[in-house]
């Protein structure tokens, strides 16, 4: 019932969650700036969930901007394209965000930006849903919120599953990050186009876009553009500002009131959720014929001289991006790719921006000081904060005891690893760390049981 009404509805929310300081003021007013590519562009072959891509160029080849350089290695995989023109100088292991070396295609940028012939606008209105999905697959689009799930799979629901809700995720609940916020303000037409294309694929007439109320200007802007649409209805759902509102399951709960059943996928609840930047990327595939070559990256944190939003070509060196912000004004103790709640701390800044890199944060030593772990007070703040209604402290105890029956009963595998429990703990305990360990142990135990 909550979705009847005018263009803007809500505010909606979910149970649990936390209220971290959003720290978005540093960058939310900073327009997206196009960043020049690095001299040497690096493309790790694993840039999406699933199996790595397979190179389709050889060392010494000249490649053009927008040219496919690696083919999807399977169904759950995505093509990779070169964001510059230049020469392939190597296919070799390079350091990546995950802290391990991974086979990567190295391209020497000739700075000519010579476009590949394939890049031309497509009229999606004349294409069948299947042709649209194929074009998205060809463009190598993946979920740009961070999970990097190949988008063409989301657009092809399994036989027999009916999609009822198309939800675009503009919650952007991670502190510091403002790339989705800026995209909504600056390129609303690309986002709306993307939504219309997806509506056609699913044969739907209504799409929802969820935006947290800490972005009133984005809500207004998207609603303005949504009202211009005559053939389809686009509803802006205001969301209460709360972490992790941008989690797929919690966005679905807030918008539809439905829960995705434990162990099932959103598609089982009849919902498809796509991130803002992903949606805009789909729009660009047809508006300009552009494969996924760029993404928006927020660079922020107390070490960064000029916190900024950049449109970065995939393959660009992280170090170069940081230098474009004026570099570090004080020694960085931690550099994070992504947001502070779920991002990955890196050991080496000489890595490339990949499809899933939503942000670069530089934190000084005062921000990451390790505090002494104290005894659990049983205050229940982790229980109250858990968006999945789990008992993080009890899970932690069960992991230590390796009590797998209890872990199953407590719903270990339901944990979405949002980190709310660790964030709120007054005793500096790290329940999530134990939960991750527990998941690995449980998987191993299950595999051994199968043998």
């Amino acid at each position, binding site marked *: 019932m909550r979705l009847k009404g005018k263009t803007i509805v809500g505010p909606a929310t979910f149970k649990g969650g936390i209220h971290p300081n959003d720290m978005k003021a540093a960058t939310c007013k900073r327009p997206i700036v196009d960043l020049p590519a690095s001299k040497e562009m690096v493309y790790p072959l694993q840039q999406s969930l699933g199996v790595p891509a397979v190179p389709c160029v050889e060392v010494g080849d000249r490649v053009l901007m927008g040219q496919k350089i690696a083919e999807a290695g399977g169904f759950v995989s995505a093509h990779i394209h070169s964001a510059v023109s230049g020469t392939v100088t190597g296919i070799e292991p390079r350091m990546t965000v995950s802290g391990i070396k991974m086979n990567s295609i190295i391209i020497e940028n000739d700075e000519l930006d010579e476009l590949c012939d394939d890049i031309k606008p497509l009229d999606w209105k004349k294409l069948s849903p299947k042709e649209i999905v194929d074009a998205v697959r060809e463009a190598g689009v993946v979920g740009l919120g961070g999970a990097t799930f190949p988008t063409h799979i989301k657009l092809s629901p399994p036989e027999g599953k009916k999609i009822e809700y198309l939800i675009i995720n503009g919650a952007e609940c991670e502190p510091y990050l403002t790339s989705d916020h800026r995209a909504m303000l600056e390129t609303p037409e690309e986002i709306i186009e993307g939504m219309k294309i997806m509506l056609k694929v699913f044969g739907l007439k209504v799409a929802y876009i969820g935006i947290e109320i800490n972005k009133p200007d984005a809500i207004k802007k998207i609603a303005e553009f949504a009202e211009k649409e005559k053939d389809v209805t686009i509803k802006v759902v205001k969301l209460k500002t709360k972490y992790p509102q941008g989690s797929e399951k919690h966005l679905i709960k807030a918008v539809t009131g439905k*829960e995705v059943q434990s162990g099932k996928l959103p598609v089982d609840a009849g919902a498809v959720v796509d991130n803002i930047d992903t949606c805009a990327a789909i729009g660009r595939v047809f508006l300009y014929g552009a494969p996924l070559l760029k993404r928006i990256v927020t660079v922020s944190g107390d070490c960064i001289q000029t916190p900024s939003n950049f449109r970065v070509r995939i393959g660009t060196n992280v170090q170069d991006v940081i230098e474009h912000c004026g570099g570090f004004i004080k020694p960085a103790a*931690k550099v994070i790719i992504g947001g502070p709640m779920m991002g990955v701390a890196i050991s080496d800044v000489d890595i490339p921006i990949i499809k899933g890199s939503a942000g670069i944060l530089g934190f000084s030593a005062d921000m990451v000081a390790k505090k002494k772990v104290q005894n659990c007070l049983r205050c229940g703040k982790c229980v109250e904060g858990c968006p999945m*209604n789990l008992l993080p402290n009890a899970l932690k105890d069960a992991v230590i005891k390796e009590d797998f029956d209890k872990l199953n009963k407590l719903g270990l595998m339901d944990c979405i690893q949002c980190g709310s429990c660790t964030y709120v703990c007054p005793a500096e305990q790290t329940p999530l760390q134990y939960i991750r360990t527990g998941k690995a142990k449980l998987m191993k135990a299950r595999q051994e049981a199968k043998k």
Partner: protein
Amino acid sequence: MATQNVNEMLIVTEAPHTRGKNTTSGIMLDVIIALIPALIAGIVVFGFRSLTLAVVCMVSAVLFEWAWCKILKKPSTVGDFSAALTGLLLALNLPVTMPYWMAVCGSLFAIIVVKQFFGGIGHNFMNPALAARAFLLTSWAQAMTTWAVPFSKTSIFSGADAVTSATPLGMIKEGMTDSLPSYMDLFLGNIGGCVGEVSAVAILIGAAYLLARRVISIRIPGAYILTVAVLAFIFGGKDGLFTGDALYHVLSGGLLLGAFFMATDYVTTPYTKKGQIIFGVGCGVLTAVIRIYGGYPEGVSYSILLMNVVSPLIERYTVPQKYGMVKVEKGGAN
């Protein structure tokens, strides 16, 4: 800055990389701050000895904690202020005339026996201050039930020569209902009783602070007080059912202090929301039963202690329903 230099300094840890502002010591300090109005009320009503008693309890509790950690070569936990809080709570639960050495025995019992024997902060299964109060009550019943008359002068050094009175609940128990203090006396603290429990208004100011700071939620104290009020109204009257004076029961004795400051102790109460309601109702039922039918005039401390013991059981049966466990509606997808 060269790449090499940057990398040498980088710390790699798991997410999340940011933490909330809550700390154990901050929480304990908040509760201590919230108890200051009750302590001031105690000083105003019973004189300066209230303060010296509080100082004796707090200092001794901290010293015992420090000594225990020292002897066992464990890192000191004095800095989390939980021992200081236990000492203060103990003092507020004693009559102002309590000999200092007995109070020190109470601190010893609270910190060493109830808290440290079971593993220190977070591991005790009973509220240390309340357990110490129960211990003192069984050991020195006379001293624990000697109530100074409000605004009579109690010597700082020896409390023995104070003029004694009775608590309102004691009067009800004895049937002395003609000379009962007025609601206003109960509200402001012009009554006999423990140092911290006499002034309802002072306790409520502290409680409001804790609620505003989100240190406690209203679930336990709300359920507790409401249950006592309802049961007192139904069963507490002399002229049959539904004639009891609910407000009188709520304002008198240790109910408000216990409900807001002791029944909300994180360590010894359930952390599930439903469990907290059950805990509060359980405390309320026990308190009402002891007050109305029991041998003691007051039952707040024993009620909370008994409910402390069943907390793990309550927790086990009040596990919240996980996200994604609801049945899918008919006719919907899937």
